């Protein structure tokens, strides 16, 4: 096992990087969901300006490469006098980019909610805020599990780009290991398989969650 011989001495170091990848992804998905939920509710608002601003945000951050966005924040924020670490910058950039995709997911979830349900809630005398948080969002989130999962998987893949701004997450540590061992093929091949297994595993988990959350929805 030549691959294992190359990787084995550096396993602890790679695991540190892996932990950082997981941390970045978890923080970013939380940020992205919060931002996406706000954006989605703005996009379903009646006010033209609010809707326009939210649409523009989604449009811009989906059509500009993540690397360019990342450099914009990484080099730009210090210019504004905001000095935060590369990891924090990366998480913020991932949250903002992810939020644009999540808002799409949530918005299409909101669209699937039957207007009859909302009318019924109105008649029952619920406030608009309560209708949105207690009725529309839970239904919308339930159908959004699968698309939201693919956003999460995309975030995991995107997190490798953080290595370009000196964050030593999984890809960053692998770069260092490849440089010290002079065995780039073995290191990157293992890395590729590792990422692929991680995202495949994630997609299984997402499928299972989807089935569990929608277990009452069949046959309706």
């Amino acid at each position, binding site marked *: 096992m030549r691959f294992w011989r190359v990787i084995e001495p550096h396993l602890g170091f790679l695991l540190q990087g892996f932990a950082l990848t997981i941390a970045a992804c978890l923080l970013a998905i939380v940020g992205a969901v919060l931002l996406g939920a706000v954006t989605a509710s703005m996009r379903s608002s009646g006010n033209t300006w609010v809707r326009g601003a939210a649409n523009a945000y989604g449009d*811009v951050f989906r*059509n*500009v*490469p*993540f*690397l*360019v*966005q990342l*450099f*914009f924040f990484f*080099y*730009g924020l210090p*210019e504004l006098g905001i000095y935060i670490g590369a990891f924090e910058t990366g998480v913020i950039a991932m949250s903002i980019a992810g939020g644009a995709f999540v808002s799409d997911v949530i918005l299409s979830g909101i669209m699937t909610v039957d207007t009859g349900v909302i009318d019924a809630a109105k008649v029952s005398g619920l406030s608009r805020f309560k209708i949105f948080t207690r009725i529309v969002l839970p239904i919308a989130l339930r159908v959004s599990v699968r698309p939201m999962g693919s956003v999460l*998987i995309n975030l995991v*893949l*995107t*997190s*490798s*780009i953080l*290595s*370009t701004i000196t964050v030593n997450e999984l*890809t960053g540590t*692998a*770069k260092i290991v*490849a440089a010290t061992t*002079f*065995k*780039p*093929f*073995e*290191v*990157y*091949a293992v*890395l*590729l*398989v590792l*990422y*692929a297994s991680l*995202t*495949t595993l994630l997609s299984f988990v997402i499928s299972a969650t989807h089935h569990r959350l929608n277990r009452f929805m069949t046959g309706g």
Partner: protein
Amino acid sequence: MRYADFTPYDIILLLQGLGVTLALFVGTTLIGLALGLALAVVHHYRIPGCRPVIVLVTEALKNSPVLVQLFLVFFGIPAFLHIRMTPVEAATLTISLNTAAFAFVVFRSGIESIDRDQIEAAQVFGLNRSQILRFVIAPQAAAFSVGPLIGILVNQLQVTSLISVIGVFDLTKIGNILNLRTLQPFIVWAVIGLIYYLAAKTLAHVGGCLEAALRKSVKWGGI
């Protein structure tokens, strides 16, 4: 101390970068689509032993970061096989394969979207395999596939920005150079972002027109 301000020559630099990005994008798109189509056809005809290999490789390509793939091809393969590889070659190879993996899935579902009845009917009429592929499967699969493909291509255009990391002088690399020279990250990256944005929007628009035309021809073509 400021290093240097923007010069008119920077516009030429930007255009050069855009040229490299677009050339690489077009090249890898053509190779990728052709390869993806070939894989889908091979998959469709159930050539023994090919199916699991194709599915495994495309899934691995789709489910791993492009940056890691680039590193594997650019640093790994030359060290492993003792060959030389330029950044452009590595970038072309990687992005082409990546596009092929995504295109394969679209083409496959495009082919699978066609009713078996239609193929059986064509067989009854005495069409041979290649005729069925050309006259029955291809036009419908194309109309089905073009929408998702455009989404993939818009995405792949953005993915090409990663090749700057292995040293290809594309638009993002030019942005890096200008950023380091002028120390004006807001202006530089906003301009680079705007160029990518416009390119993506143009691509999506052209693709939308193409899709409308194809759908129309499929709908009314037989009448």
